[in-house]
Protein backbone atom coordinates (compact mmCIF):
# COMPACT_ATOMS: atom_id res chain seq x y z
CA UNK A 1 0.00 0.00 0.00
CA UNK A 2 1.33 3.39 -0.91
CA UNK A 3 2.46 5.35 2.10
CA UNK A 4 0.48 8.31 0.78
CA UNK A 5 -2.76 6.47 1.53
CA UNK A 6 -1.69 5.69 5.05
CA UNK A 7 -0.81 9.35 5.49
CA UNK A 8 -4.27 10.33 4.22
CA UNK A 9 -5.83 8.12 6.86
CA UNK A 10 -3.93 9.93 9.56
CA UNK A 11 -4.83 13.23 7.97
CA UNK A 12 -1.17 14.24 7.60
CA UNK A 13 -1.36 15.16 3.92
CA UNK A 14 -4.33 17.13 2.60
CA UNK A 15 -6.17 15.28 -0.17
CA UNK A 16 -5.54 18.14 -2.62
CA UNK A 17 -1.82 17.48 -2.41
CA UNK A 18 -2.40 13.86 -3.37
CA UNK A 19 -4.05 14.82 -6.66
CA UNK A 20 -0.86 14.49 -8.68
CA UNK A 21 0.02 11.05 -7.33
CA UNK A 22 -0.76 7.85 -9.23
CA UNK A 23 -4.21 6.39 -8.54
CA UNK A 24 -4.47 4.78 -5.15
CA UNK A 25 -5.66 1.23 -4.64
CA UNK A 26 -9.27 0.46 -5.48
CA UNK A 27 -9.69 -0.96 -1.98
CA UNK A 28 -7.39 -0.63 0.99
CA UNK A 29 -8.37 -1.80 4.43
CA UNK A 30 -6.35 -2.22 7.56
CA UNK A 31 -7.10 -3.84 10.90
CA UNK A 32 -10.84 -4.27 10.31
CA UNK A 33 -12.67 -5.59 13.34
CA UNK A 34 -16.32 -6.35 14.00
CA UNK A 35 -18.10 -8.04 16.86
CA UNK A 36 -21.77 -9.00 17.00
CA UNK A 37 -22.47 -9.37 20.70
CA UNK A 38 -19.95 -11.86 22.02
CA UNK A 39 -19.21 -13.24 18.59
CA UNK A 40 -16.16 -11.90 16.78
CA UNK A 41 -17.09 -11.79 13.09
CA UNK A 42 -14.01 -10.04 11.72
CA UNK A 43 -10.68 -9.75 13.47
CA UNK A 44 -7.79 -7.66 12.20
CA UNK A 45 -8.42 -8.09 8.47
CA UNK A 46 -6.15 -6.11 6.13
CA UNK A 47 -5.78 -6.36 2.38
CA UNK A 48 -5.78 -4.24 -0.76
CA UNK A 49 -7.19 -4.54 -4.26
CA UNK A 50 -5.13 -2.73 -6.89
CA UNK A 51 -6.74 -0.89 -9.79
CA UNK A 52 -7.70 -3.34 -12.50
CA UNK A 53 -7.03 -6.33 -10.26
CA UNK A 54 -9.47 -9.17 -9.58
CA UNK A 55 -9.28 -10.30 -5.96
CA UNK A 56 -11.08 -13.40 -4.77
CA UNK A 57 -12.36 -13.57 -1.20
CA UNK A 58 -12.63 -17.18 -0.09
CA UNK A 59 -13.58 -18.90 3.10
CA UNK A 60 -16.18 -21.16 4.72
CA UNK A 61 -19.63 -19.99 5.82
CA UNK A 62 -19.36 -17.58 8.71
CA UNK A 63 -15.75 -16.68 7.92
CA UNK A 64 -16.69 -12.99 7.83
CA UNK A 65 -16.52 -12.43 4.06
CA UNK A 66 -19.83 -10.60 3.71
CA UNK A 67 -19.18 -8.60 6.90
CA UNK A 68 -15.85 -7.46 5.45
CA UNK A 69 -17.52 -6.45 2.18
CA UNK A 70 -20.25 -4.55 4.04
CA UNK A 71 -17.67 -2.74 6.13
CA UNK A 72 -15.79 -1.73 2.99
CA UNK A 73 -19.00 -0.24 1.56
CA UNK A 74 -20.02 1.56 4.75
CA UNK A 75 -23.07 -0.67 5.24
CA UNK A 76 -21.75 -2.07 8.51
CA UNK A 77 -19.83 0.04 11.03
CA UNK A 78 -16.48 -1.53 11.88
CA UNK A 79 -15.49 -1.63 15.56
CA UNK A 80 -11.96 -0.83 14.47
CA UNK A 81 -9.79 -0.37 11.40
CA UNK A 82 -9.62 1.90 8.39
CA UNK A 83 -11.01 1.63 4.85
CA UNK A 84 -10.10 3.59 1.75
CA UNK A 85 -12.20 3.11 -1.39
CA UNK A 86 -10.70 4.53 -4.58
CA UNK A 87 -8.48 6.77 -2.47
CA UNK A 88 -11.17 8.19 -0.18
CA UNK A 89 -12.12 7.30 3.36
CA UNK A 90 -15.18 5.06 3.32
CA UNK A 91 -16.93 7.41 5.78
CA UNK A 92 -17.17 9.85 2.85
CA UNK A 93 -20.12 8.84 0.60
CA UNK A 94 -18.14 10.10 -2.41
CA UNK A 95 -15.81 7.13 -1.94
CA UNK A 96 -18.63 5.00 -3.41
CA UNK A 97 -19.13 7.26 -6.45
CA UNK A 98 -17.55 4.72 -8.84
CA UNK A 99 -18.37 1.53 -6.96
CA UNK A 100 -20.81 -1.10 -8.21
CA UNK A 101 -22.16 -3.66 -5.74
CA UNK A 102 -24.11 -6.86 -6.09
CA UNK A 103 -25.14 -7.90 -2.58
CA UNK A 104 -25.39 -11.51 -1.48
CA UNK A 105 -28.99 -10.73 -0.50
CA UNK A 106 -30.05 -9.17 -3.78
CA UNK A 107 -33.51 -7.63 -3.83
CA UNK A 108 -34.80 -4.75 -5.89
CA UNK A 109 -38.02 -2.74 -5.80
CA UNK A 110 -40.62 -5.24 -7.08
CA UNK A 111 -42.94 -2.44 -8.22
CA UNK A 112 -40.33 -0.99 -10.58
CA UNK A 113 -39.40 -2.28 -14.03
CA UNK A 114 -35.85 -3.47 -14.68
CA UNK A 115 -35.11 -0.28 -16.66
CA UNK A 116 -36.51 1.88 -13.84
CA UNK A 117 -34.27 0.14 -11.30
CA UNK A 118 -31.25 1.05 -13.43
CA UNK A 119 -32.53 4.64 -13.84
CA UNK A 120 -32.82 4.91 -10.06
CA UNK A 121 -29.25 3.74 -9.50
CA UNK A 122 -27.89 6.03 -12.19
CA UNK A 123 -29.64 8.96 -10.49
CA UNK A 124 -28.34 8.00 -7.06
CA UNK A 125 -24.81 7.66 -8.47
CA UNK A 126 -25.05 11.12 -10.06
CA UNK A 127 -23.44 9.81 -13.24
CA UNK A 128 -24.70 10.84 -16.64
CA UNK A 129 -25.35 7.52 -18.36
CA UNK A 130 -27.33 7.76 -21.65
CA UNK A 131 -30.43 5.58 -22.05
CA UNK A 132 -28.74 3.54 -24.80
CA UNK A 133 -25.87 2.63 -22.46
CA UNK A 134 -28.36 1.57 -19.78
CA UNK A 135 -30.11 -0.68 -22.29
CA UNK A 136 -26.74 -2.15 -23.28
CA UNK A 137 -26.10 -2.89 -19.64
CA UNK A 138 -29.35 -4.86 -19.41
CA UNK A 139 -28.49 -6.65 -22.65
CA UNK A 140 -25.09 -7.57 -21.21
CA UNK A 141 -26.76 -9.57 -18.45
CA UNK A 142 -29.37 -11.07 -20.79
CA UNK A 143 -32.33 -8.91 -19.75
CA UNK A 144 -32.69 -6.79 -22.90
CA UNK A 145 -36.20 -8.04 -23.64
CA UNK A 146 -37.35 -7.77 -20.02
CA UNK A 147 -36.45 -4.09 -19.55
CA UNK A 148 -40.09 -3.02 -19.30
CA UNK A 149 -41.21 -5.83 -16.99
CA UNK A 150 -41.76 -5.37 -13.28
CA UNK A 151 -39.05 -6.88 -11.09
CA UNK A 152 -41.76 -8.52 -8.94
CA UNK A 153 -42.30 -11.05 -11.74
CA UNK A 154 -38.62 -11.96 -12.08
CA UNK A 155 -37.16 -15.31 -11.04
CA UNK A 156 -34.28 -15.31 -8.55
CA UNK A 157 -31.80 -15.86 -11.32
CA UNK A 158 -33.19 -12.92 -13.29
CA UNK A 159 -33.07 -10.72 -10.19
CA UNK A 160 -29.44 -11.65 -9.74
CA UNK A 161 -28.77 -10.77 -13.36
CA UNK A 162 -30.50 -7.44 -12.74
CA UNK A 163 -28.26 -7.01 -9.69
CA UNK A 164 -25.24 -7.46 -11.94
CA UNK A 165 -26.59 -4.79 -14.29
CA UNK A 166 -27.14 -2.47 -11.30
CA UNK A 167 -23.53 -3.06 -10.23
CA UNK A 168 -22.25 -2.25 -13.71
CA UNK A 169 -24.53 0.57 -14.87
CA UNK A 170 -22.85 3.61 -13.31
CA UNK A 171 -19.45 3.13 -14.98
CA UNK A 172 -17.74 1.66 -11.93
CA UNK A 173 -14.00 1.61 -11.29
CA UNK A 174 -14.51 -1.01 -8.60
CA UNK A 175 -17.12 -3.77 -8.68
CA UNK A 176 -17.89 -5.76 -5.55
CA UNK A 177 -19.65 -9.05 -6.27
CA UNK A 178 -20.87 -11.00 -3.25
CA UNK A 179 -21.76 -14.54 -4.35
CA UNK A 180 -22.74 -13.35 -7.86
CA UNK A 181 -23.66 -16.79 -9.17
CA UNK A 182 -25.63 -18.20 -6.24
CA UNK A 183 -28.93 -18.18 -8.17
CA UNK A 184 -27.56 -18.68 -11.67
CA UNK A 185 -27.59 -21.76 -13.89
CA UNK A 186 -24.31 -23.06 -15.40
CA UNK A 187 -24.75 -20.77 -18.42
CA UNK A 188 -25.22 -17.80 -16.16
CA UNK A 189 -22.06 -18.70 -14.28
CA UNK A 190 -20.08 -18.70 -17.49
CA UNK A 191 -21.61 -15.30 -18.31
CA UNK A 192 -20.45 -13.94 -14.96
CA UNK A 193 -16.97 -15.32 -15.53
CA UNK A 194 -16.80 -13.65 -18.95
CA UNK A 195 -18.14 -10.47 -17.43
CA UNK A 196 -15.46 -10.38 -14.73
CA UNK A 197 -12.77 -11.03 -17.34
CA UNK A 198 -14.21 -8.23 -19.49
CA UNK A 199 -14.13 -5.84 -16.49
CA UNK A 200 -10.55 -6.86 -15.82
CA UNK A 201 -9.59 -6.17 -19.43
CA UNK A 202 -11.10 -2.68 -19.10
CA UNK A 203 -9.04 -1.98 -15.97
CA UNK A 204 -11.97 -2.22 -13.55
CA UNK A 205 -11.03 -3.69 -10.18
CA UNK A 206 -13.21 -6.55 -8.96
CA UNK A 207 -13.63 -7.92 -5.46
CA UNK A 208 -15.25 -11.32 -5.85
CA UNK A 209 -16.66 -13.38 -3.02
CA UNK A 210 -17.64 -16.80 -4.27
CA UNK A 211 -17.97 -20.35 -3.08
CA UNK A 212 -17.23 -21.56 -6.58
CA UNK A 213 -13.49 -22.03 -6.21
CA UNK A 214 -13.10 -23.07 -9.81
CA UNK A 215 -14.51 -19.74 -10.95
CA UNK A 216 -12.26 -17.83 -8.56
CA UNK A 217 -9.26 -19.77 -9.79
CA UNK A 218 -10.11 -18.94 -13.39
CA UNK A 219 -10.61 -15.20 -13.03
CA UNK A 220 -8.76 -13.95 -9.96
CA UNK A 221 -5.27 -12.46 -9.88
CA UNK A 222 -5.02 -12.77 -6.14
CA UNK A 223 -6.90 -14.52 -3.38
CA UNK A 224 -7.53 -13.73 0.28
CA UNK A 225 -8.66 -16.70 2.37
CA UNK A 226 -10.64 -15.80 5.48
CA UNK A 227 -11.25 -18.21 8.34
CA UNK A 228 -13.02 -17.36 11.58
CA UNK A 229 -12.84 -13.67 10.78
CA UNK A 230 -9.08 -13.61 10.19
CA UNK A 231 -6.93 -13.68 7.05
CA UNK A 232 -5.71 -17.29 6.95
CA UNK A 233 -3.69 -16.89 3.73
CA UNK A 234 -3.34 -14.47 0.87
CA UNK A 235 -1.31 -14.02 -2.27
CA UNK A 236 -1.35 -14.45 -6.02
CA UNK A 237 -2.59 -17.78 -7.33
CA UNK A 238 0.96 -18.78 -8.28
CA UNK A 239 2.17 -17.89 -4.81
CA UNK A 240 -0.67 -19.67 -3.07
CA UNK A 241 -0.55 -22.80 -5.18
CA UNK A 242 3.22 -23.03 -4.95
CA UNK A 243 5.60 -24.53 -7.50
CA UNK A 244 4.23 -26.67 -10.24
CA UNK A 245 5.53 -30.14 -10.80
CA UNK A 246 5.66 -32.54 -13.71
CA UNK A 247 5.71 -36.33 -13.36
CA UNK A 248 7.26 -38.45 -16.08
CA UNK A 249 7.30 -42.24 -16.51
CA UNK A 250 10.45 -43.08 -18.34
CA UNK A 251 11.92 -46.28 -19.66
CA UNK A 252 15.70 -46.77 -19.88
CA UNK A 253 16.65 -43.51 -18.16
CA UNK A 254 20.39 -43.36 -17.69
CA UNK A 255 22.68 -40.83 -15.97
CA UNK A 256 22.55 -38.40 -18.87
CA UNK A 257 18.75 -38.41 -18.80
CA UNK A 258 18.75 -37.77 -15.03
CA UNK A 259 21.20 -34.88 -15.50
CA UNK A 260 18.85 -33.39 -18.09
CA UNK A 261 15.91 -33.81 -15.71
CA UNK A 262 17.85 -32.10 -12.89
CA UNK A 263 18.62 -29.21 -15.21
CA UNK A 264 14.87 -28.56 -15.44
CA UNK A 265 14.31 -28.56 -11.68
CA UNK A 266 14.70 -30.47 -8.39
CA UNK A 267 14.25 -34.17 -9.11
CA UNK A 268 12.77 -37.01 -7.10
CA UNK A 269 12.48 -40.60 -8.31
CA UNK A 270 10.18 -43.44 -7.41
CA UNK A 271 10.76 -46.51 -9.57
CA UNK A 272 10.39 -45.44 -13.16
CA UNK A 273 8.42 -42.29 -12.13
CA UNK A 274 10.45 -39.07 -12.07
CA UNK A 275 9.02 -35.87 -10.53
CA UNK A 276 10.54 -32.54 -11.51
CA UNK A 277 9.68 -29.32 -9.65
CA UNK A 278 9.20 -26.42 -12.02
CA UNK A 279 9.64 -22.74 -11.26
CA UNK A 280 6.43 -20.83 -10.43
CA UNK A 281 7.22 -18.37 -13.23
CA UNK A 282 7.82 -21.14 -15.77
CA UNK A 283 6.97 -19.79 -19.23
CA UNK A 284 5.55 -23.08 -20.48
CA UNK A 285 8.48 -24.25 -22.63
CA UNK A 286 10.39 -26.19 -19.97
CA UNK A 287 8.31 -29.36 -20.25
CA UNK A 288 8.17 -29.60 -24.09
CA UNK A 289 11.92 -28.91 -24.27
CA UNK A 290 12.60 -31.52 -21.63
CA UNK A 291 10.54 -34.16 -23.44
CA UNK A 292 12.24 -33.32 -26.75
CA UNK A 293 15.71 -33.66 -25.19
CA UNK A 294 14.85 -36.92 -23.40
CA UNK A 295 13.62 -38.43 -26.65
CA UNK A 296 16.80 -37.18 -28.27
CA UNK A 297 18.78 -39.04 -25.61
CA UNK A 298 16.99 -42.24 -26.56
CA UNK A 299 14.78 -42.31 -23.46
CA UNK A 300 11.34 -43.88 -23.95
CA UNK A 301 8.76 -41.45 -22.55
CA UNK A 302 5.66 -43.40 -21.45
CA UNK A 303 3.79 -40.62 -19.64
CA UNK A 304 4.02 -36.92 -18.88
CA UNK A 305 1.61 -35.62 -16.20
CA UNK A 306 1.43 -32.07 -14.95
CA UNK A 307 0.99 -32.04 -11.18
CA UNK A 308 -0.63 -28.93 -9.85
CA UNK A 309 -2.28 -28.41 -6.51
CA UNK A 310 -5.73 -26.96 -7.04
CA UNK A 311 -6.98 -23.88 -5.21
CA UNK A 312 -9.61 -26.09 -3.63
CA UNK A 313 -6.96 -28.42 -2.18
CA UNK A 314 -5.00 -25.44 -0.96
CA UNK A 315 -8.09 -23.84 0.57
CA UNK A 316 -9.01 -27.05 2.38
CA UNK A 317 -5.45 -27.42 3.63
CA UNK A 318 -5.51 -23.87 5.02
CA UNK A 319 -8.92 -24.29 6.63
CA UNK A 320 -8.00 -27.67 8.13
CA UNK A 321 -4.88 -26.07 9.55
CA UNK A 322 -2.59 -28.35 7.64
CA UNK A 323 -0.62 -25.22 6.78
CA UNK A 324 0.78 -22.41 8.92
CA UNK A 325 -2.16 -20.46 10.40
CA UNK A 326 -1.39 -17.18 8.72
CA UNK A 327 0.84 -16.49 5.84
CA UNK A 328 1.36 -13.72 3.39
CA UNK A 329 2.86 -15.65 0.52
CA UNK A 330 5.62 -13.96 -1.34
CA UNK A 331 4.44 -10.43 -0.65
Amino acid at each position, binding site marked *: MASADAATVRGVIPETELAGLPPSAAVWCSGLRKRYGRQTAVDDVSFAVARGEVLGLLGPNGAGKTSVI*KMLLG*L*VRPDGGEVLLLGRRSSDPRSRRAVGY*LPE*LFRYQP*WLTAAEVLDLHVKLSRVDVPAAERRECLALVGLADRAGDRVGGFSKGMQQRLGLAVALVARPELVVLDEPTSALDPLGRVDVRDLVLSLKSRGVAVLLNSHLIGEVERVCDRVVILDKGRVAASGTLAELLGQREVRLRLGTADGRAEDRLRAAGALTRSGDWFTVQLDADDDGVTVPDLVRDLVGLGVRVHAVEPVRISLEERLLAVLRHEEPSHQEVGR
Partner: protein
Amino acid sequence: MTALTVAGLTLREAARRRVVWALLVLTVVLLALSGWGFSKLVGLDTDLGTMTSGEARLVASLLLNLIMFGFSLIAAIGTAFLAGPTVAGEVESGQALSILARPVRRSSVLFGKWLGLVAFGCGYVVLAGLAQILVVRTVVGYWPPAPARGLALLAAETIVLLTLALLLSSVVSTMASGIIAVGLFGATWVAGVVGGIGGALGNEGVERVGTVSRVILPTDGLWRGAMNAFQDPIALVQMGPGEGGFPFLSESPLTLAYLAWAVLWIAVVWGLTAVSFQRRDV
Protein backbone atom coordinates in the same frame (compact mmCIF):
# COMPACT_ATOMS: atom_id res chain seq x y z
CA MET B 1 -31.07 15.64 -5.01
CA THR B 2 -30.86 12.23 -3.35
CA ALA B 3 -33.74 13.20 -1.06
CA LEU B 4 -35.95 14.21 -3.99
CA THR B 5 -35.13 10.99 -5.88
CA VAL B 6 -36.01 8.90 -2.83
CA ALA B 7 -39.16 10.97 -2.15
CA GLY B 8 -40.27 10.34 -5.74
CA LEU B 9 -39.55 6.63 -5.29
CA THR B 10 -41.64 6.54 -2.10
CA LEU B 11 -44.58 8.20 -3.85
CA ARG B 12 -44.23 5.86 -6.81
CA GLU B 13 -44.25 2.91 -4.41
CA ALA B 14 -47.50 4.15 -2.87
CA ALA B 15 -49.03 4.50 -6.34
CA ARG B 16 -47.73 1.20 -7.73
CA ARG B 17 -48.63 -0.81 -4.66
CA ARG B 18 -52.21 0.37 -5.18
CA VAL B 19 -52.30 2.15 -1.84
CA VAL B 20 -53.60 5.21 -3.66
CA TRP B 21 -56.38 3.25 -5.34
CA ALA B 22 -57.40 1.54 -2.10
CA LEU B 23 -57.56 4.90 -0.33
CA LEU B 24 -59.44 6.48 -3.21
CA VAL B 25 -62.14 3.79 -3.16
CA LEU B 26 -62.40 3.97 0.64
CA THR B 27 -62.65 7.76 0.57
CA VAL B 28 -65.26 7.89 -2.18
CA VAL B 29 -67.40 5.37 -0.25
CA LEU B 30 -67.01 7.42 2.93
CA LEU B 31 -67.86 10.67 1.11
CA ALA B 32 -70.92 9.14 -0.55
CA LEU B 33 -72.18 7.69 2.74
CA SER B 34 -71.61 10.94 4.59
CA GLY B 35 -73.35 12.93 1.83
CA TRP B 36 -76.36 10.60 2.06
CA GLY B 37 -76.34 10.82 5.88
CA PHE B 38 -76.11 14.61 5.90
CA SER B 39 -78.96 14.91 3.40
CA LYS B 40 -81.16 13.03 5.88
CA LEU B 41 -80.32 15.55 8.61
CA VAL B 42 -82.23 18.41 7.07
CA GLY B 43 -85.88 18.14 7.91
CA LEU B 44 -85.21 15.19 10.23
CA ASP B 45 -88.15 14.36 12.52
CA THR B 46 -87.01 13.84 16.09
CA ASP B 47 -88.96 13.17 19.29
CA LEU B 48 -88.78 16.91 19.93
CA GLY B 49 -90.15 17.87 16.52
CA THR B 50 -88.60 18.69 13.17
CA MET B 51 -84.94 19.72 13.33
CA THR B 52 -84.39 23.37 12.48
CA SER B 53 -81.70 24.42 10.02
CA GLY B 54 -79.67 25.81 12.95
CA GLU B 55 -79.86 22.51 14.78
CA ALA B 56 -79.00 20.72 11.59
CA ARG B 57 -75.89 22.93 11.25
CA LEU B 58 -74.89 22.07 14.81
CA VAL B 59 -75.25 18.37 14.19
CA ALA B 60 -73.48 18.77 10.84
CA SER B 61 -70.61 20.48 12.63
CA LEU B 62 -70.32 17.57 15.06
CA LEU B 63 -70.61 14.97 12.34
CA LEU B 64 -68.03 16.77 10.21
CA ASN B 65 -65.57 16.42 13.08
CA LEU B 66 -66.46 12.76 13.41
CA ILE B 67 -65.83 12.12 9.71
CA MET B 68 -62.64 14.16 9.76
CA PHE B 69 -61.50 11.96 12.61
CA GLY B 70 -62.20 9.02 10.34
CA PHE B 71 -59.97 10.55 7.65
CA SER B 72 -57.20 11.30 10.11
CA LEU B 73 -57.46 7.71 11.31
CA ILE B 74 -57.20 6.40 7.73
CA ALA B 75 -54.22 8.69 7.05
CA ALA B 76 -52.65 7.68 10.36
CA ILE B 77 -52.98 3.96 9.72
CA GLY B 78 -52.03 4.35 6.05
CA THR B 79 -48.87 6.33 6.65
CA ALA B 80 -47.87 4.31 9.70
CA PHE B 81 -48.09 1.09 7.72
CA LEU B 82 -46.32 2.70 4.77
CA ALA B 83 -43.58 4.10 7.02
CA GLY B 84 -43.05 0.74 8.72
CA PRO B 85 -41.68 -1.11 5.68
CA THR B 86 -39.70 1.98 4.70
CA VAL B 87 -36.67 1.41 6.88
CA ALA B 88 -37.14 -1.89 8.73
CA GLY B 89 -38.69 -3.67 5.74
CA GLU B 90 -36.07 -2.55 3.25
CA VAL B 91 -33.24 -3.49 5.61
CA GLU B 92 -34.82 -6.88 6.33
CA SER B 93 -35.44 -7.65 2.64
CA GLY B 94 -32.04 -6.44 1.47
CA GLN B 95 -33.44 -3.66 -0.73
CA ALA B 96 -31.55 -1.09 1.34
CA LEU B 97 -28.16 -2.68 0.55
CA SER B 98 -27.83 -1.63 -3.07
CA ILE B 99 -29.24 1.85 -2.41
CA LEU B 100 -27.06 2.64 0.61
CA ALA B 101 -23.96 1.38 -1.22
CA ARG B 102 -24.42 4.31 -3.62
CA PRO B 103 -22.72 7.65 -2.94
CA VAL B 104 -25.59 8.81 -0.73
CA ARG B 105 -25.85 9.97 2.86
CA ARG B 106 -28.20 7.89 4.95
CA SER B 107 -29.75 11.07 6.35
CA SER B 108 -30.60 12.16 2.76
CA VAL B 109 -32.23 8.80 2.05
CA LEU B 110 -34.19 9.05 5.29
CA PHE B 111 -35.21 12.63 4.56
CA GLY B 112 -36.37 11.60 1.09
CA LYS B 113 -38.52 8.82 2.52
CA TRP B 114 -39.95 11.18 5.13
CA LEU B 115 -40.64 13.80 2.48
CA GLY B 116 -42.41 11.25 0.26
CA LEU B 117 -44.54 10.03 3.16
CA VAL B 118 -45.35 13.61 4.20
CA ALA B 119 -46.45 14.43 0.65
CA PHE B 120 -48.56 11.28 0.50
CA GLY B 121 -50.15 11.53 3.97
CA CYS B 122 -50.75 15.29 3.87
CA GLY B 123 -51.95 15.16 0.28
CA TYR B 124 -54.51 12.54 1.21
CA VAL B 125 -55.78 14.27 4.35
CA VAL B 126 -56.07 17.66 2.66
CA LEU B 127 -57.80 16.39 -0.48
CA ALA B 128 -60.16 14.00 1.31
CA GLY B 129 -60.89 16.58 4.01
CA LEU B 130 -61.58 19.29 1.47
CA ALA B 131 -63.89 16.98 -0.47
CA GLN B 132 -65.79 16.24 2.75
CA ILE B 133 -66.14 19.92 3.61
CA LEU B 134 -67.53 20.55 0.11
CA VAL B 135 -69.98 17.66 0.47
CA VAL B 136 -71.25 19.07 3.77
CA ARG B 137 -71.54 22.55 2.27
CA THR B 138 -73.48 21.26 -0.71
CA VAL B 139 -75.85 19.12 1.33
CA VAL B 140 -76.36 21.09 4.55
CA GLY B 141 -74.91 24.50 3.67
CA TYR B 142 -72.42 24.40 6.57
CA TRP B 143 -68.98 25.92 6.02
CA PRO B 144 -66.47 25.56 8.84
CA PRO B 145 -64.98 28.75 10.34
CA ALA B 146 -61.33 28.01 9.47
CA PRO B 147 -61.13 25.11 6.99
CA ALA B 148 -57.55 25.82 5.87
CA ARG B 149 -56.26 25.88 9.46
CA GLY B 150 -58.20 22.72 10.25
CA LEU B 151 -56.83 20.84 7.24
CA ALA B 152 -53.30 22.07 7.97
CA LEU B 153 -53.56 20.79 11.55
CA LEU B 154 -54.89 17.45 10.31
CA ALA B 155 -51.88 17.29 7.98
CA ALA B 156 -49.59 18.17 10.92
CA GLU B 157 -51.16 15.36 12.93
CA THR B 158 -50.34 12.96 10.08
CA ILE B 159 -46.75 14.23 9.97
CA VAL B 160 -46.33 13.62 13.71
CA LEU B 161 -47.56 10.07 13.42
CA LEU B 162 -45.54 9.14 10.36
CA THR B 163 -42.40 10.64 11.92
CA LEU B 164 -43.01 8.43 14.95
CA ALA B 165 -43.62 5.40 12.70
CA LEU B 166 -40.36 6.13 10.90
CA LEU B 167 -38.44 6.25 14.20
CA LEU B 168 -40.00 2.99 15.32
CA SER B 169 -39.26 1.50 11.92
CA SER B 170 -35.57 2.23 12.36
CA VAL B 171 -35.39 0.37 15.67
CA VAL B 172 -38.01 -2.41 15.60
CA SER B 173 -39.42 -4.76 12.97
CA THR B 174 -41.80 -3.74 10.18
CA MET B 175 -44.98 -5.09 11.70
CA ALA B 176 -44.20 -3.89 15.22
CA SER B 177 -43.50 -0.33 14.11
CA GLY B 178 -46.90 0.06 12.42
CA ILE B 179 -48.80 -1.53 15.28
CA ILE B 180 -47.03 0.49 17.99
CA ALA B 181 -47.50 3.78 16.08
CA VAL B 182 -51.22 3.23 15.51
CA GLY B 183 -51.63 1.91 19.08
CA LEU B 184 -50.00 5.03 20.53
CA PHE B 185 -52.16 7.22 18.28
CA GLY B 186 -55.31 5.51 19.61
CA ALA B 187 -54.10 5.54 23.21
CA THR B 188 -53.37 9.29 23.04
CA TRP B 189 -56.82 9.98 21.64
CA VAL B 190 -58.45 7.93 24.41
CA ALA B 191 -56.28 9.73 26.98
CA GLY B 192 -57.47 13.03 25.47
CA VAL B 193 -61.12 11.97 25.86
CA VAL B 194 -60.45 10.81 29.45
CA GLY B 195 -58.80 14.17 30.16
CA GLY B 196 -61.84 15.95 28.69
CA ILE B 197 -64.18 13.99 30.97
CA GLY B 198 -61.90 14.83 33.90
CA GLY B 199 -62.15 18.51 32.97
CA ALA B 200 -65.97 18.31 32.69
CA LEU B 201 -66.16 16.66 36.10
CA GLY B 202 -63.70 19.14 37.59
CA ASN B 203 -61.19 16.41 38.44
CA GLU B 204 -57.74 17.88 37.84
CA GLY B 205 -55.92 14.58 38.22
CA VAL B 206 -57.93 12.93 35.43
CA GLU B 207 -57.73 16.10 33.32
CA ARG B 208 -53.93 15.95 33.57
CA VAL B 209 -53.95 12.55 31.82
CA GLY B 210 -55.07 14.27 28.62
CA THR B 211 -52.62 17.16 29.01
CA VAL B 212 -49.60 14.91 29.58
CA SER B 213 -50.51 12.57 26.71
CA ARG B 214 -50.88 15.59 24.37
CA VAL B 215 -47.34 16.66 25.25
CA ILE B 216 -45.82 13.20 24.86
CA LEU B 217 -47.45 12.60 21.47
CA PRO B 218 -48.93 15.75 19.87
CA THR B 219 -51.40 13.91 17.60
CA ASP B 220 -54.38 14.42 19.94
CA GLY B 221 -53.52 18.07 20.63
CA LEU B 222 -53.31 18.83 16.91
CA TRP B 223 -56.52 16.91 16.30
CA ARG B 224 -58.31 19.03 18.91
CA GLY B 225 -56.98 22.15 17.22
CA ALA B 226 -58.30 20.87 13.88
CA MET B 227 -61.73 20.12 15.41
CA ASN B 228 -61.88 23.63 16.79
CA ALA B 229 -61.27 24.99 13.30
CA PHE B 230 -64.02 22.82 11.78
CA GLN B 231 -66.78 23.14 14.37
CA ASP B 232 -69.52 25.75 14.49
CA PRO B 233 -68.62 28.25 17.27
CA ILE B 234 -72.26 28.25 18.33
CA ALA B 235 -71.98 24.52 18.99
CA LEU B 236 -69.99 25.04 22.17
CA VAL B 237 -72.51 27.57 23.49
CA GLN B 238 -75.43 25.32 22.64
CA MET B 239 -73.82 22.27 24.20
CA GLY B 240 -73.31 24.29 27.40
CA PRO B 241 -70.72 23.71 30.11
CA GLY B 242 -69.27 20.24 30.33
CA GLU B 243 -68.82 19.91 26.59
CA GLY B 244 -65.20 18.99 27.23
CA GLY B 245 -66.29 15.45 27.85
CA PHE B 246 -67.62 15.21 24.32
CA PRO B 247 -64.91 13.76 22.08
CA PHE B 248 -65.91 15.58 18.89
CA LEU B 249 -65.92 19.15 20.13
CA SER B 250 -62.90 21.19 21.08
CA GLU B 251 -63.08 24.02 23.58
CA SER B 252 -60.29 26.27 22.35
CA PRO B 253 -57.96 26.74 19.38
CA LEU B 254 -54.32 25.68 19.59
CA THR B 255 -51.81 27.97 21.21
CA LEU B 256 -48.69 29.00 19.31
CA ALA B 257 -46.62 27.47 22.10
CA TYR B 258 -48.23 24.08 21.49
CA LEU B 259 -47.66 24.38 17.74
CA ALA B 260 -44.01 25.24 18.41
CA TRP B 261 -43.78 22.19 20.67
CA ALA B 262 -45.25 20.01 17.90
CA VAL B 263 -42.65 21.31 15.43
CA LEU B 264 -39.85 20.74 17.96
CA TRP B 265 -41.22 17.26 18.69
CA ILE B 266 -41.13 16.39 14.98
CA ALA B 267 -37.57 17.75 14.65
CA VAL B 268 -36.30 15.85 17.70
CA VAL B 269 -37.93 12.55 16.69
CA TRP B 270 -36.64 12.95 13.13
CA GLY B 271 -33.13 13.64 14.49
CA LEU B 272 -33.29 10.53 16.69
CA THR B 273 -34.38 8.49 13.66
CA ALA B 274 -31.47 9.86 11.61
CA VAL B 275 -28.96 9.00 14.35
CA SER B 276 -30.43 5.53 14.77
CA PHE B 277 -30.43 4.88 11.01
CA GLN B 278 -26.90 6.24 10.63
CA ARG B 279 -25.57 3.80 13.23
CA ARG B 280 -27.55 0.82 12.03
CA ASP B 281 -25.77 -2.09 10.38
CA VAL B 282 -27.65 -3.14 7.24
